[in-house]
């Protein structure tokens, strides 16, 4: 997996580059939007990590240009300015995630993994999540190479949680994911399916209940 880091501050860029390399990514670095544009013209990257405050053209302009060209790879925005306007603008422009400085290396690595995984899940590719391997196209789950038998709704619950691994998924959202016209849902259907999935995953993955909010599949990479 190849990542392009666009960051002008050497101290930050070095730390990010080395940290991501140590996590197993191939990392290239650009110190300006202009340099990033020429790198993007010739090379393929699975993910972009872009700082907003770049000299010359800023990071948001880079994202705008990228999306206007029709590029779909995920973009993680870094910024030291935590104004809401920047956050909203970044997400509107088509950035996929937003990380406020200062952050911990592990947080950055987890976000990068999640973004790449989500892109692959959307693309219907096979995704590894710790000991689990999800085959989205074939609706197949393997744990340590052993196929796990999941019903349709159990798969939908797992898929929804896996797409958002490391994030809390609300009960309402899971309910929508498993709702279908032919079968009526009991009010506690989500709890029932989540506990069934939990039982089938065993100790391969942890699905946490966040009181009052929903469920979260812990990202095994953190």
């Amino acid at each position: 997996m190849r990542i392009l880091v666009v960051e002008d501050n050497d101290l930050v860029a070095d730390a990010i580059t080395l940290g991501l390399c140590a996590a197993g990514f191939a990392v290239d670095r650009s110190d300006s939007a202009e340099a990033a544009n020429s790198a993007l013209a010739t090379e393929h990257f699975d993910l972009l990590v872009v700082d907003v405050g770049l000299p010359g053209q800023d990071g948001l302009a880079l994202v705008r240009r990228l999306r206007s060209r029709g590029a779909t790879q995920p973009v993680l925005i870094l910024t030291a300015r935590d104004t809401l306007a920047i956050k909203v603008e970044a997400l509107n422009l088509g950035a996929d995630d937003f990380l406020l400085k200062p952050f911990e290396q592990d947080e950055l690595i987890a976000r990068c993994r999640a973004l790449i995984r989500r892109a692959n899940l959307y693309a219907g590719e096979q995704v590894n999540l710790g000991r689990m391997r999800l085959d989205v196209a074939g609706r197949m789950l393997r744990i340590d190479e052993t196929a796990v038998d999941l019903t349709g709704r159990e798969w939908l619950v797992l898929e929804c949680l896996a797409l958002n691994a490391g994030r809390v998924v609300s009960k309402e959202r899971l309910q929508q994911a498993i709702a279908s016209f032919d079968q009526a849902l009991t009010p506690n259907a989500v709890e029932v399916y989540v506990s069934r999935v939990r039982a089938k995953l065993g100790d391969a993955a942890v699905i946490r209940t966040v009181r009052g909010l929903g469920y979260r599949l812990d990202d095994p990479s953190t």
Partner: protein
Amino acid sequence: MIRALKSAPSIQRRLLWFLLPPLAALMLAGVYANYRAATAFVESAYDERLGDAAIALAGSLIKEGQRVRVDPGAVPTTAHRTDHLVDLRYAIVGAGGELLAGTREVPIAAASVTANPTFADALVGGERLRVASYRVNIARDVAIISVAESAAQRAVPGRFILASTWLMDFIQLDVTLLIVWLGVHFGLKPLLSLRRQIEAGSPRELKHLDATTVPGEVKPLVEALNLLFDVLAEAARSQRRFVADTAHQLRTPITGLLGNLELLMKEPGTVLLRPRLQALHTGMENLARSANQLLALARADPSTSFAEPFDTVDLQALAGRIVEINVDRALNAGLDLGVEAAAAAVRGNLRLLEDLLGNLVDNAIHYTPRDGHVTVRVGLRDGRPYLEVEDDGPGIPEDQRGRVRERFYRIPGSTGHGCGLGLAIVSEIAEAHGAQFTLESGAAGKGTLARLLFRSPVV
């Protein structure tokens, strides 16, 4: 915050106070003058008629030899008036003072009576009389004719005049007062519309007032206000720019330092240095948190925050977001962090409210020991939106609950991890939102319950 304890009376009230009493006094004087003029006119008309009666009596005198005698058949007993007849009493006295006709009860108006009727008021037997006396010469003889009528009879039209004058003048007074009131009211309308314009605009918007529709007297005031708004808005803008620039200048190097430190800690060769590196890392994290808190405080400062745009903020969504951000920290600290939220929305600034709730949750997670619970609650109580963070940690001693809101204050002996700004930030942001911020003990007297009660919900 400036509060007028006692406001000066309004211009409308002042105008009415200045105009109404003198106008009312003037009207009363008018009533009196009208009454006097009307009664004087009526009096003279009555007197003239009384005089006519006396002259008419003269026609009944005849000279008989040396004596003057009254021809009883010719004595008019009544004076004719248009509406009713009035009883007349009279006395005809000879030159020697002898009564020739009539009654002695009628006095003579004056000592020297002339050939023209003389009038006087008299009191005879407890009755007030009006008397007209008149001297007649009959063939070189003299007789004095006195005619009297009861003053009470005259009082009837006098009262009628008084009543009608009062009535007319009071109607006039009322109409005048109404006109004055309406005039003042409509004259001050531009001021009222200016007031509405000021009240309608949120003070955070610092929007210019329309100076084109205000009267000339107020125009300089409005223009001065608009100028002040500009200065304030510019000051707030530059303060915000400063905060944003500072944030950037502080956070970027901290990110770089933290990142390199974390890389260093993972190097196999640094195992022996790890405790020192860990201490450095903790210090760096505290520095980062302090920088964040200082920036949050600067954002929450009234001079900056009053120009922050206010929108509808969904408290339920806010609570969910802040809890989600903190789930991992809570898990690492062995805490159960949860939400109990019902739909509630307020008018506010999302960024500031995020700072507020973030600080409350951060405090609760930091101070609550392992296996504790932290719960964020959102909802409506008596129609007012509230935001609560409750923990079952050690709680804040009652005598410290006021002081912990002060900037940089830390409870003696506490293991503070920031720079003692968290609750100061919460206080400032609460104030900017007109919300009530209270610190209580949690359920069963244990832990801390931090509560924000907002004024009114957004529907």
